[in-house]
């Protein structure tokens, strides 16, 4: 009879498994490569990440974690952009794609493996990973584009948040609900959010709007691995919420919508841009989402970009085009504007690229993203958002309100 003795040992082992499971990741085959080289193309100074006429950019994405669907699409967008474009008409761009599995520790490890070979970071997915890498990015004078919109990211020198931060984004979403008469002053809203930068920043938006419009906010924090939103929605239903706000991933969006409709809670659902994935429209909660979901987003929808859609579908015929792919393409565009500017000033070193990044203003991506004013420390780079809704179009969403600025957006932007 040895049950008692082993129970405690097993408890320790269980904890160990939780830790190991969280650390699992796979590595993309494409890694390694040459170091820095001298300036061969004309009089442009170079240091790290350029060999001959090839620029190497890093991509730290999520191909196996909670944002895997988004990560894959953004990376496809990055790749598609650089297949068709050059820097300064001279340099081709090669991407070093690595999978973090949305685990910050893995991200830090992968970055230390690639940092001596890349000029800049085309993509770093996830607020926690960007935050974890912030000191290194700063020390290495790296220009980086996160596929995340947390306010804290705007504090990192060289990191360019491409659109409004989550607080401004959610505030713009509320504005749309107010404007459409879907929500009134003094209402009660329930906000489900991830622990960490992403969720907290989204919640900050809700709280700012609540103060301005006299709302009551019921916050419910969850972990990114939580799948079942029953308890949270039950709590909201009991409080009689007039709207549900989500700063989560698509899986939780599906669950929240399904539970809300099961409980007869038929209210608008407002989401930060990462809550939506086209695959949701094939699941059991599709109808609830079509009826009630509004997404505030810095990225336009595919129905506004038919040419890019055609190009994308040719390059990736067996994938569902999502917003992530548009964003990935736009990220390439902004990076190219930075690198072009650096190249024109004759300095494609990391320092030169960082300087060009800081001087960029009024960034226009031809409607792919909301207009971006500039990258200033601590300030939301944009005050505008698109409003999207699920629809039976490629990408699963369409623009119902073009890029606009809500009432408290400027105040929130900092």
């Amino acid at each position, binding site marked *: *009879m*040895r*049950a*008692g*003795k*082993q*129970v*405690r*040992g*097993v*408890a320790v*082992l*269980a904890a160990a*498994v*939780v830790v*190991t*499971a969280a650390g*699992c990741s*796979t590595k993309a085959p494409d890694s390694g490569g040459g170091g820095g080289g001298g300036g061969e193309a004309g009089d442009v100074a170079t240091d790290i990440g350029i060999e001959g006429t090839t620029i190497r950019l890093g991509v730290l994405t999520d*191909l*196996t*974690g*909670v944002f*895997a*669907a988004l990560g*894959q699409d953004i990376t496809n967008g990055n790749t598609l952009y650089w297949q068709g474009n050059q820097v300064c008409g001279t340099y081709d761009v090669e991407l070093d794609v690595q999978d973090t599995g949305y685990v910050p520790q893995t991200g830090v490890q992968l970055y230390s493996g690639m940092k001596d070979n890349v000029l800049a970071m085309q993509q770093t997915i996830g607020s926690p990973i960007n935050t974890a890498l912030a000191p290194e990015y700063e020390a290495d004078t790296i220009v980086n584009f996160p596929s995340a919109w947390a306010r804290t990211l705007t504090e990192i020198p060289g990191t360019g948040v491409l659109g409004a931060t989550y607080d401004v984004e959610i505030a713009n979403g509320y504005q749309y609900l107010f404007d459409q008469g879907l929500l009134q002053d003094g209402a009660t809203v329930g906000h489900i959010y991830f*622990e960490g930068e992403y969720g907290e920043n989204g919640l900050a938006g809700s709280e700012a709007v609540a103060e301005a419009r006299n709302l009551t906010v019921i*916050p*419910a*924090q*969850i*972990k*990114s*691995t*939580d*799948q*079942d*939103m029953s*308890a*949270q929605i*039950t*709590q909201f*239903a*009991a409080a009689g919420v007039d709207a549900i706000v989500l700063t989560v991933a*698509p*899986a*939780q969006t*599906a*669950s929240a919508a*399904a*539970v809300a*409709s*099961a*409980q007869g809670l038929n209210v608008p659902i407002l989401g930060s841009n990462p809550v939506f*994935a086209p*695959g949701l429209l094939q*699941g*059991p*909660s599709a109808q*609830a989402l079509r009826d009630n979901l509004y997404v505030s987003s810095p990225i336009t929808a595919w129905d506004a970009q038919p040419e890019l859609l055609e190009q994308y579908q040719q390059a990736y015929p067996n994938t569902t085009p999502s917003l992530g792919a548009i964003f990935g393409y736009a990220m390439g565009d902004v990076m190219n504007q930075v690198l072009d500017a650096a190249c024109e000033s004759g300095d494609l070193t990391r320092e030169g690229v960082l300087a060009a990044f800081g001087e960029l203003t009024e960034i226009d991506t031809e409607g792919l993203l909301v207009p971006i004013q500039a990258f200033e420390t601590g300030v939301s780079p944009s005050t505008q958002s698109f409003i999207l809704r699920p629809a039976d179009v490629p990408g699963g969403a369409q623009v119902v309100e073009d890029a606009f600025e809500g009432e408290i957006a400027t105040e929130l932007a900092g």
Partner: protein
Amino acid sequence: MTQFLSLLLNGISLGAIYALIALGFVIIFKASEVVSFTQGSLLLLGAYTIARLSGPYGFLVAALAGILVTALAALLIERLVINRLRGAPVISLAIVTIGVDIILLTELIRRIGPDILNVPHPWGGDSVRIGGVGISQNRLIAMLVAGVLIVVFFLAFKYSSWGVAMRASAEDGEAAALMGIRQGRVSALAWVVAGVLAAVAALFLVGAPTPGVSAAVYTVALRAFPAAILGGLDSTGGALVGGLLIGIAEALAAGYQEQLSFLGRGFGEVVPYVVMIIVLLVRPSGLFGTKELTRV
């Protein structure tokens, strides 16, 4: 009150699924004294098989195939790994199962990739309202099925010759072997049963109100661990009570997050472990576990 009942019902339905997984741990432990950490990946294997096959072959065939494949995988793990290491310290065997789990899990995550796979349950996302309390049909059916399965296994342990053989092997392997009990067979059957239970749990776990098969389904098995341990690792009744306790505690902690906010937000996550620790402090062998006897 409606909120409380709704959370309670939701907690019970979640707890029933935890109980199925916890029962798998218990059965393997009783038969072979091995604590198996493979339940998480077996669960995901079941879910993945059901989701992949339900497209071409329909839900029913896929569900049966999923259960079969998972049971087979469990049998293979037992035959190819655990059985060959018989006699090794049980703690080493537990570590070996962690290794097997990680291998299987990594491959499954690679296969699932970025998708969320939908399983077309015939009952879909429909829900039933009992009084003011709503619950998805999927969870309701899960509760019934879990209840039936647990009763069946409970009876099997008590009265079937397999159950007696299993209890005898767990009690004293050598004496059981001398009495003619084929321990290898007992252990193999236990793993098959644990595989079946994992697949059945998976079948319901990937239905409403959760969104389908994604790699995160794996983490549910980790929450069934404290359930099995606090119930008493060698007690089938304990698995049931432990599962329900954890499910209810988790649902209530998440649902009353606002009132519990002095404990920090996201408290629902740690509740299973807090409950486990409290129970173990009071009863080191778990609620229904066999007490350790030491003769001096």
